[in-house]
């Protein structure tokens, strides 16, 4: 119980450094999830509605990419953003932006793959009706994304869960710089390496609570959406 006590003590102490870390964690993970959703959901919808040779291969590939190893993505982004890499001039390495980039890459396939499934199911339902209404291809995708929005929350949650729990890629491209790129997970890794296991465990509890809170919020949103399901 000592771990929990120290976790609560940390929260109650109102340590601004802790809040900065929590804030950065949320900012990076939510930012990455949002970006990945803006790109991934339309991509998933596009694949759901398209018929082209090799489509099955693309679907399998997308599903496989859900299991991208964070360390590999982190390394690839590191090499891209490094000053001697192709995008080095942007000066993004070891910044929160770099962390958003790498997590977006990790989350994108999850959101795209889960959106594709959701949209494809809804498309089966809507297909004839939209055809009879004479709805064009662009509006079709917009309609499906909008009407599936409550179901897509699940895809966003899966993506956010991946991002919030992830440490392997952000520690490589962020550098775990105190007060700048230090997040919940990299702090937990650091405190573990300092042998401060109670603090690491306590931070883990806080992270768990935050993820739980986000899930509760999403659940509430889905409850609203359930009124629109058959």
């Amino acid at each position, binding site marked *: 119980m000592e771990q929990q006590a120290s976790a609560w003590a940390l929260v109650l102490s109102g340590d601004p450094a802790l809040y900065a870390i929590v804030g950065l964690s949320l900012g990076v993970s939510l930012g990455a999830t949002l970006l990945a959703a803006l790109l991934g959901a339309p991509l998933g919808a596009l694949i759901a509605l398209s018929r082209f040779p090799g489509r099955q291969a693309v679907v399998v590939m997308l599903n496989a990419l859900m299991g991208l190893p964070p360390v590999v993505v982190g390394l690839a982004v590191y090499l891209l953003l490094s000053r001697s890499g192709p995008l080095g001039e942007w000066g993004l390495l070891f910044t929160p932006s770099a962390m958003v980039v790498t997590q977006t890459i990790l989350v994108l396939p999850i959101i795209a793959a889960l959106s594709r499934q959701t949209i494809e199911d809804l498309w089966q*339902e*809507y297909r*004839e*009706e939209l*055809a*009879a*209404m*004479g*709805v064009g291809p662009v*509006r079709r995708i917009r*309609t499906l994304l909008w*009407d*599936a929005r*409550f179901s897509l929350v699940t895809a966003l949650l899966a993506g956010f869960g991946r991002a919030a729990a992830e440490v392997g890629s952000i520690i490589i491209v962020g550098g775990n710089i105190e007060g700048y790129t230090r997040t919940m997970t990299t702090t937990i890794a650091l405190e573990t390496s300092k042998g401060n296991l109670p603090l690491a465990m306590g931070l883990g509890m806080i992270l768990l609570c935050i993820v739980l809170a986000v899930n509760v919020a999403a659940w509430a949103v889905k409850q609203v959406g359930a*009124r*629109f*399901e*058959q």
Partner: protein
Amino acid sequence: MNTTHLPIVLDGVHVSIGGTSILRNVSLRLEAGAPTVLIGPNGSGKTTLLRAAMGLMPTTAGAVRWGTDGDGSPGRSALVFQRPVMLRRSVADNVRYALDVSGFPRPLREQRTGQLLSLVGLAALANRPAPRLSGGERQRLAMARALARDPEALFLDEPTASLDPAATLAIEELVRAVSARGVKVVMTTHDLGEAARLAGDVVLLHRGEVAETGPVAQVLGNPTTEIARRFISGQLVL
């Protein structure tokens, strides 16, 4: 009402799907005026005929032409399915969506949505999620969506199938009201009584061919073919 796209003329229409012939040599004139009601046993091609006439389904042979003086291209039409899909939005948003799709001017949209909902008797349910409506209410909302396209011809596929008498009555009254506004209604039904109540012309389909067609009183009261006599007298027709 601009009626230059009527009548709809089907000339020797064949439709086959995957090698199976669904419609064979169908020639019909769907004239402006009272509803044309398609009857016939299951699988006789009623739904396919609706879709072919509307232009949703390509013909294998023959032609569908709209109007007698123009180039025959289809006019504005709308189709209501037997089990219409409700968009996962409110009742009013379903109508707004249909108005947007048909390019209805935005500033007039709210007013038009209200009119359509009143017409189909759903004004009180405007904010309810559409997927929560009853079967009859769904049919009426689908009619409102269809009317949002301001169609010259409205195609209804078994609009009263599996509805209770009260809901059926509401739909039939709506069909009469729509027809009275100059919209050509083409619908299918299993219910000969309904055909008698609503139709101007009746078309009896059998195995993809027109078995008998004419004004409702003539076809139902004095059928000329053996098939029609048996079907109308309530015998099973295979």
